């Protein structure tokens, strides 16, 4: 589903963010992307949803070489990828419902269908009683669940998460992890970038480790903890 072939990326001439990365994530896989701050986790995720272009090498998503995409092709790629962030990136002047509905409005869905689908996903997230609230009125865990609802509402092929539990307490972390697992069980390929060891230990999934922009390890969580 996701393939990196000798990918390098430099923001400036002598500031290399990623160096010769090659790896594959299969369809339906759950992968943790770990490493210290500044290791290149976020950069790798941004390459997947086309917010950045590699300086060298190729990125293939679902068989398509997105390094050769024109600017107008990226929106269509992003419709099959859900993304969540540590800071949630919710629109503060819109309600919970409206924040989630954006994804379907972009796809041109009918208002009635949007309403049904958004309510369905928010019920799954346990947020059905807060649809008319604005994000500021919600706790961190609730905001992340809304962000997840927005990312998952159109059942994307890939779900990317950049430090999704960075601002959350233990109980909320577990709840968010369970949502990732559920999405994965339903067929979504999940890539979670995190440096939270406890989160990785709680779920025994493949872990790709980055160190100073280079691939430093790839294996089961237990191996990585030892490494």
């Amino acid at each position, binding site marked *: 589903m996701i393939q990196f072939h000798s990918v390098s990326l430099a923001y400036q001439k002598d500031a290399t963010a990623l160096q010769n990365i090659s790896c594959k994530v299969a369809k339906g896989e759950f992968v943790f992307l770990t490493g210290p701050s500044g290791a290149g986790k976020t950069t790798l995720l941004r390459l997947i949803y086309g917010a950045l272009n590699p300086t060298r090498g190729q990125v293939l998503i679902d068989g398509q070489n997105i390094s050769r995409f024109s*600017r107008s092709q990226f929106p269509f790629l992003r419709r099959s990828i859900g993304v969540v962030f540590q800071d949630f*990136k919710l629109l503060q002047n819109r309600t919970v419902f409206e924040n989630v509905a954006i994804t379907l409005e972009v*796809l*041109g869905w009918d208002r009635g269908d949007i309403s049904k689908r958004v309510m*369905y996903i928010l019920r799954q997230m346990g947020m059905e009683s807060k649809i008319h609230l604005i994000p500021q009125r919600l706790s961190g865990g609730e905001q992340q669940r809304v962000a997840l609802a927005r990312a998952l509402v159109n*059942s994307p092929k890939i779900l990317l998460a950049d430090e999704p539990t960075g601002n959350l307490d233990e109980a909320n972390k577990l709840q968010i992890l369970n949502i990732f697992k559920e999405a994965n069980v339903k067929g979504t390929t999940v890539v979670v970038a995190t440096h939270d060891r406890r989160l990785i230990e709680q779920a025994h999934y493949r872990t790709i480790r980055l160190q100073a922009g280079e691939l430093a390890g790839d294996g089961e969580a237990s191996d990585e903890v030892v490494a």
Partner: protein
Amino acid sequence: MKSSRNIVKRPTMSHQGASGRMRYFLGRALANIRQNVFVNVVTVGTITLALLIVALFLLLVVNLENAAESWSERVQVTVYFDKELTAQEQTDLKNRIQALPGTVKVGWVGRDEALKRFKGRLKGQETLLEGVRPEILPTSFEIALKKSSRSSEAVEAYVARLKMVPGIGEIQYGEEWVRRFNTFLTFMRLVGALVGGFLLIAVVFIVSNTIRLTIYARRDELEVMSLVGATRLFIKMPFLIEGLVQGLAGGLLSLILIVLIYQLFLHNAGNFLTFNPVTSGLAFLPVEFMLGLVAVGALLGVTGSLTSLRRFMADS
């Protein structure tokens, strides 16, 4: 979940038609205005004030032009004759002069009329006129010129043509006055164009920067929309419609304000500000200027939004 997957893959998208899309964009733009009232009030206020300054400047220009035109009506050519012309001679000459390009009107001033005017000018000093009989005054033709023939060069060219007319008398047209008046007009127009140009640049700068700040404040919206796969047009359209609405609102408000200012303060200003000695009182903007003001507002709103979006979307 299986059933919901079917919904996701549903091929028909009910409002993908052009009108459905437009309805969505319009609805989104109006919702954005409702959700960002303060920002919109600030933007509309800025556009209104900026256009109001432009409107006041235009009002000044229109009235100065009116004044200049009425002053330029004083540019006339007079042909004096020592002798009284016969009716036949008068008609012949009048017809010939009338046929010259640039002539608007030719008026005959006979000796009696000349004396009457002379008396009018010397009101209060009638004793000076004792013994003056009409016979000693010259008769004349007074020629009013077309607007396009009132510049120094045009008047000179006209006079040269007039001299060719057989039987013509002594020609006077106040060369010095015409020359000075035209220099003054050219100077005023140059100053007007310069001030107007600077004003326009300032207005464009202020309005586009205000819009840029308001869009900058909502750059997270651009980012989120782009993240969920919205095309650039889909992201831009509601903002452009919002810009259009802001521009139209600003244009209309500035128009209402200029009408109010004119009615309350300037309408009667002619009593003490005699810009235009003929009509007295200030003229209001012509309809095309009013429409232009609203159109400029709309244009500013749309282009301001477009350039700002281009800048911020390139970053995202």
